[in-house]
């Protein structure tokens, strides 16, 4: 290297137009997952939301509602503990826990490894409960057939504008804890309007896992998805 200016006379500077997604390597694994699920005829549903919005409870409700009609498998993503997996296991369905440690999201490779440990030939529906977080999971395509975002009424109707990516990447927004609507300042119309600003095609279901309101509509939605 030249002492005067730091240039390297033996090398030439090359400019390379790359124009590729930064998370391209994740997308390669996501594509493999998509093919694998398609091969087994399994509908994968990636559930994303803040912590405490009711993902695990909704999965439990769904297992009960579909018992005998649809075989379900579950992959649980958490920073620590396998508490959610234990809850699901009590319902008698195959479940795998991914403990991410430091990572605030699941990526397609983690899901791929977990899928290898599930009997995909004996399930119709695979729920993937992502790490509770409205930001990071949205950046990672997992290769599931459906992305669903849960927004609970206690979180506030302004979340779609504050955390736009997860609403942009989801085909369905499930507004949970509708039984609490009377006690909180949550305007479902505003939440829907803001979600549709980032994603005009997003579908909406309002439900309560506790009272059962809207659960029928949810079940219909995923059964329709599983058939197509």
């Amino acid at each position: 290297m030249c002492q005067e200016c730091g240039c390297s006379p033996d090398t030439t500077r090359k400019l390379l137009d790359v124009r590729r997604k930064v998370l391209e390597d994740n997308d390669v694994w996501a594509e493999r997952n998509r093919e694998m699920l398609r091969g087994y005829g399994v509908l994968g549903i990636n559930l994303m939301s803040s912590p405490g919005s009711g993902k695990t409870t909704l999965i439990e409700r769904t297992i009960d509602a579909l018992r005998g009609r649809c075989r379900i498998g579950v992959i649980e993503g958490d920073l620590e503990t396998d508490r959610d997996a234990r809850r699901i296991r009590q319902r008698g369905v195959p479940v795998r826990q991914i403990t991410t440690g430091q990572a605030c999201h699941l990526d397609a490779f983690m899901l791929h490894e977990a899928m290898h440990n599930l009997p995909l030939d004996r399930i119709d529906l695979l729920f993937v409960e992502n790490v509770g977080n409205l930001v990071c999971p949205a950046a990672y395509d997992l290769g599931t057939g459906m992305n669903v975002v849960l927004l609970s009424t206690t979180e506030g109707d302004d979340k779609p504008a504050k955390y736009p990516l997860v609403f942009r990447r989801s085909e369905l927004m499930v507004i949970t804890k509708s039984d609490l609507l009377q006690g909180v300042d949550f305007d479902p119309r505003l939440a829907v309007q803001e979600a549709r600003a980032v994603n005009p095609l997003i579908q909406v279901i309002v439900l309560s896992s506790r009272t059962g309101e809207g659960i029928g509509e949810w079940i219909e939605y995923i059964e329709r998805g599983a058939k197509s």
Partner: protein
Amino acid sequence: MHEFSIVQSLLRTIGRYAAEHSATEVSKVIVRVGPLSGVVPHLLRTAFDTFKEGTVAEKAELCIKEEAMRLHCDDCGRDSGVSSPMFRCQHCGSLRVKACNGDELILERLEMECP
């Protein structure tokens, strides 16, 4: 805070291109980030500066181009460009707008030293 994971993917990709072109060093990395990408530019920079050590991009400068987002207004029919995730028509103030883009997270260009 997934910028650390994103940077690790970015550095893997850079390493691949550098090896393909037998580059001895990567001097500049240009990425394009949209306001809906979920990435905070200064956190991306911090993560990059932390993880680039010991890689071929050790001396690289990270250049982040913050992309504007195009909003289409359902009321007045016009488009406006905004650089933050704000959903209001810049012409008529309507909230009935749709984002046409904004989730970009793209490795645009590399400057490399090659023999």
